[in-house]
């Protein structure tokens, strides 16, 4: 180790590094300090270089309440992005006259929530271990939770939480799988792969250009089909189309993040859809995603699966989608200030799309 004042550097190939990143602590002069990663000095080849940590006395670090810390760490506020589409799928099923079971509804919703919490936690941990989210790259306004970076929870704690939630989600899904093994075992395996393999090694879908596909399937058609089979014991093309709609919205959120991370991903050899197709084409993908979402709804209305209210809901959202896409298209590069507001806007739009669709389906 090399140290000066409250900063130390640790070589990337040091055996201590992983332990420090996971625990968020360093022992120095027989005292325990919180260690916040500040800077990555990366060398020409993979795995070489150093990480600079800022050390702080735990007694002097102000922390919010444990509830607030964990609320931020697990991104509980983002659950509506999953729960609202579930509401839409449920309403669609009821409107379609499908019989449903309360216990399965309860376990399915909880199971999806658990898996959602799991994937967020494990993804944040993995990004932390790869030092993607260091303080100078993310602040609260930039969309990062900041919980790991501020030492509110350690990566080890969050990882245990993530795996715990994954197990809990699996356990909750078992009754439904036993009821409908043919469909749900595959959907369940796919979901588990998405959760554990999204960022976890050795799969790391999000680092190999497959994150976008995983997001689309897991939060779109996969979620729709899996939920409906679990709750209603059946599914249909209409709910699949709904799944496509929500999947596109979720993909847009993910893609907005990839646009911003474009140069960083390129320099670290991380493959995303954006880096594969290039920045200019990646910008064009944003309106394409929303267009496809609206086309799926239009198709559903044309086929008679959805009522006119659904079409109205989709139309109402188009000006917001257009404004967001215009901003993304105007951005001159990944570091453009114009992109800064795009990601939160895609999140807000995703919620808006889910909420309005649910209301439209209810009205129908």
């Amino acid at each position, binding site marked *: 180790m090399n140290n000066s004042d409250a900063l130390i*550097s640790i070589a990337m190939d040091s055996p201590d590094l992983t332990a420090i990143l996971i625990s968020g602590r360093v022992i120095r002069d027989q005292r325990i300090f919180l260690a916040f990663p500040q*800077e990555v000095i990366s060398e020409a080849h993979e795995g070489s270089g150093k990480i600079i940590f800022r050390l702080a006395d735990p007694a002097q670090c102000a922390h919010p309440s444990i509830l607030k810390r964990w609320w931020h760490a697990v991104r509980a506020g983002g659950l509506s992005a999953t729960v609202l589409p579930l509401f839409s799928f449920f309403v669609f099923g009821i409107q379609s006259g499908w019989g449903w079971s309360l216990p399965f509804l309860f376990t399915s919703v909880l199971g999806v929530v658990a898996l959602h919490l799991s994937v967020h936690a494990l993804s944040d941990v993995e990004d932390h271990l790869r030092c993607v989210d260091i303080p100078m*790259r993310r602040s609260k*306004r930039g969309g990062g939770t900041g919980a790991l970076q501020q030492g509110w929870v350690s990566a080890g704690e969050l990882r245990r939480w993530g795996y715990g939630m994954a197990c809990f989600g699996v356990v909750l899904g078992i009754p439904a799988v036993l009821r409908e093994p043919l469909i749900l075992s595959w959907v369940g395996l796919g979901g588990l792969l998405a959760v554990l393999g999204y960022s976890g090694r050795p799969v790391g879908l999000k680092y190999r250009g497959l994150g976008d596909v995983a997001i689309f399937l897991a939060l779109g058609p996969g979620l729709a089909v899996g939920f409906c089979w679990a709750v209603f014991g059946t599914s249909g093309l209409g709910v699949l189309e709904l799944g496509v709609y929500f999947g596109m919205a979720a993909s847009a959120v993910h893609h907005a993040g990839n646009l911003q991370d474009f140069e960083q991903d390129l320099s670290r050899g991380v493959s995303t859809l954006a880096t594969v197709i290039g920045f200019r084409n990646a910008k064009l993908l944003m309106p394409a995603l929303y267009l496809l979402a609206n086309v799926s709804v239009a198709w559903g209305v044309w086929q008679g699966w959805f009522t006119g209210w659904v079409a109205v809901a989709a139309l109402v959202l188009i000006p917001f989608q257009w404004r967001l896409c215009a901003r993304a298209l105007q951005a001159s590069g990944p*570091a453009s200030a114009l992109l800064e*507001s795009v990601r939160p806007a895609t999140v807000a739009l995703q919620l808006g799309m889910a909420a309005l669709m649910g209301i439209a389906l209810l009205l129908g």
Partner: protein
Amino acid sequence: MISLGSVSVRQALGGLEFQLPERSSVPEIEILLNRSVLLGGKRLRPLLTFLIADCLEIPLEKVAPFARAAEFTHAATLAHDDVIDEARLRRHRATINARASNSRAVLAGDFLLAKALKEISSAEKPELVAGLASVLEELVSGEWLQLEARGITHVGLRHLEEVARKKTASLISWCCTVAPVLRGCEPGTLRRFSMMGEYIGIAFQMIDDVIDYQQGGEKPFAQDLREGLVNLVTHHLMDQNPGMDSEIERVVAEFRAEEAMLESAGSPASAPVTRWPWSSEQLERARETVRQAGNSKIFAARELWAELVRELRLDEKAPSVRAIFEIIEKIPKRTA
């Protein structure tokens, strides 16, 4: 006072002429430049170029053209920046656009860039010329990004660091690689010199942002905000204080309205004091956050220089080696 390394470095820097001879076919351009952007300045870029050359035992006359090219490039960007920012003063003197016109300021900047390229056009290492050309690309794209961000308050750290990297760090990074390239250093070594320069440049810019919120400095208080630009301190003010976003937006809108009114009235744009939406404690906390982040960059630069000293077996006690450590250490202590 920063030590300037060895006697030879002091002599080389002192002997390097940054004033243009005023003998070109249009001497007015050179006169304008000599009385504005080429006058004064810290000469950090040529200094780093000479110091590293001295450490690597490269004859200083060999790097002198590169040192001058770096300073010309920097001065050219100042001339162009003054046009974009509609600045009337630089270093207590009238800017080129204030003395002459915007068009002449742009042309004067272009003239200096041509001079910079001419200085190094016969360099024995064409990669240095290509490197400076890449730096020019970065400088322009950094300015472009910043221009795009004018009036936008939702600006992230990634954007701010990228602008700092392109506008400030890229040229300093190039200066740090001149002597190593001439010496024929390995790619890994070159990369470390380049990274060291980048960290120095970014730290320099971060401290600039802190100084921007200092009363009694060379520039008016919160000059960036007056120009509709969010810098690191402003970003952290908003990040640390809920509700500050809308207040900052109000201030930016006020400045823009004032500027438009003053310009249409025909008088020089000097925005009056407005009601600042932050307390002194809030401002100091934001400045301290940026200083802390700057310390990480300084630490990284120092680590890299220490590694290079070990790797190249340089004499740690040599004046130029110590001078580079000193430059790195002094950056956070800047007040101007």
